[in-house]
């Protein structure tokens, strides 16, 4: 139902140590966001892309398709950053509209290009994490980072319930489709409203029954799950440290010395 969730359970990097993957993704992401340079962004995009596709075994087309998910946002906000409505034309180009100009400067053009590249490479870091690491493993890492216990427990429960509710929702919408529930715009709005309220009712009922079931099995406030993880390997840790240090030094060099 959730494509990313399916992909990450089938990834070949799934059984690598979760802390390693988490550290790699987050540190690289931070360097990438902090540096704001096109060269760093290019390197990060290439490395995480290759790792996810080649090492992780995600189909290339799928991966590229996922990279286009944020495209609408990117497109609209780039327009907002690049174009200006001014009375004086700027140096990149200018389209006159009566007394005003729809215009852009070279500065804002390069700024926008750099921003698009940075954003795409940051997204590729995020994809590396979400395409290789299932949610329970990420929660295990958060637990090691001393995230509050209540929060972790809530997240684990929510993660489980998402699939339960999605199942209910898809069943309801199938039966609505069977009964011409989406025949025109008015009915489809009404159907969606009904779907929402029934979903809420089902959720409340289920949550009561679920608590009873958990109570019957000695629930005391923590849910303990077995994590199937390989122990961290020195070779991989060394590789991550080497890559991120090199990237960091390169980013600093690009920023201050060139």
């Amino acid at each position, binding site marked *: 139902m959730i494509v990313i969730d399916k992909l990450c359970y089938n990834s070949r990097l799934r059984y690598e140590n979760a802390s390693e993957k988490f550290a790699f993704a987050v540190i690289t992401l931070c360097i990438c966001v902090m540096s704001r340079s096109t060269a760093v962004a290019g390197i990060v995009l290439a490395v995480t892309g290759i790792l996810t596709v080649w090492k992780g075994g995600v189909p290339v087309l799928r991966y590229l398709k996922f990279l286009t998910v944020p495209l609408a946002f990117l497109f609209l906000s780039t327009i907002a950053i690049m174009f200006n409505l001014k009375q004086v034309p700027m140096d990149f180009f200018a389209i006159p509209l009566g007394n005003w100009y729809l215009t852009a400067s070279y500065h804002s053009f390069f700024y926008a290009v750099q921003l698009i590249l940075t954003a795409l490479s940051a997204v590729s870091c995020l994809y590396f994490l979400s395409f290789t690491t299932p949610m329970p493993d990420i929660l295990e890492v958060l637990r090691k980072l001393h995230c509050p216990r209540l929060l972790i427990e809530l997240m684990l429960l929510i993660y489980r319930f998402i699939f339960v509710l999605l199942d209910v929702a898809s069943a309801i919408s199938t039966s609505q489709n069977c009964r011409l529930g989406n025949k025109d715009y008015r009915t489809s709005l009404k159907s*969606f409203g009904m779907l929402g309220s029934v979903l809420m009712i089902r959720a409340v009922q289920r949550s009561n029954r679920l608590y009873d079931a958990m109570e019957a099995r000695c629930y005391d406030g923590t849910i303990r799950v077995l994590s199937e993880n390989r122990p961290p390997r020195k070779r991989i840790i060394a590789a991550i440290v080497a890559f991120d240090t090199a990237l960091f030094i390169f980013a600093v060099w690009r920023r201050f010395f060139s």
Partner: protein
Amino acid sequence: MSKNQKRILVLASAFALTFGIVPTVSAMHIMEGYLPGGFCIAWGVLCVPFLIAGFMSIKKTLNEHRNLVTLLAMSGAFVFVISSLKIPSVTGSCSHMTGTGLGAILFGPSAVSILGLIVLLFQAILLAHGGLTTIGANTFSMAIAGPFVSYGLYVVLKKANVDKKVCVFLAAFLGDLFTYCVTAVQMALAHHADTTFGAAVGKFLLVFAPTQVPLALIEGVITVLIIMGLETYAKPELRAIGYLKEGK
């Protein structure tokens, strides 16, 4: 073709490109990597007091009624699922609702701040909406600012004896619009390359308006439909949810 005709052609195609290829219109999550490091941290820090308040209130409620933990989790999952379903939209592009207005009306703003944070994290990792570095900014606009406006409006309008449908609609609609304005301000603060801050806010508002304003309207209508459905069929369940609000 004269020069003028060419110009019109260029403008028309630019317009068509802008509004033709809009694959998914989701609520305005700021994309991963779109804000500079300093802004990510600043927005994150700004969220902390609200999150701590929300966390305390949830903890207090759960200490009193231990059995509400599953209800709370179901509510979080509900917000996630509602925001991941395609809603019927006029233009045929697929759009998603925020669900935070509905959440604020049902569960109260303090619970929604924590649930919103978790839902945003899941949306980033499972649906690729939003991101890890921008989670602070997104939490502020979608899980704190919007729900507080929605809930405040809902309470005030209910006190003023406005019709329930109108008051739910206005709460959800204006909460959504407020989220969109806050996001525009956040983006403009970070990126105003060669204009003033005010002009940048205007530009972001203008560019996102064609997608966000209809979305807010639809979200308002759907929220009314859902609440009305619940009022009709689920009085006891609503009473159970009412407990979540008490721990403010």
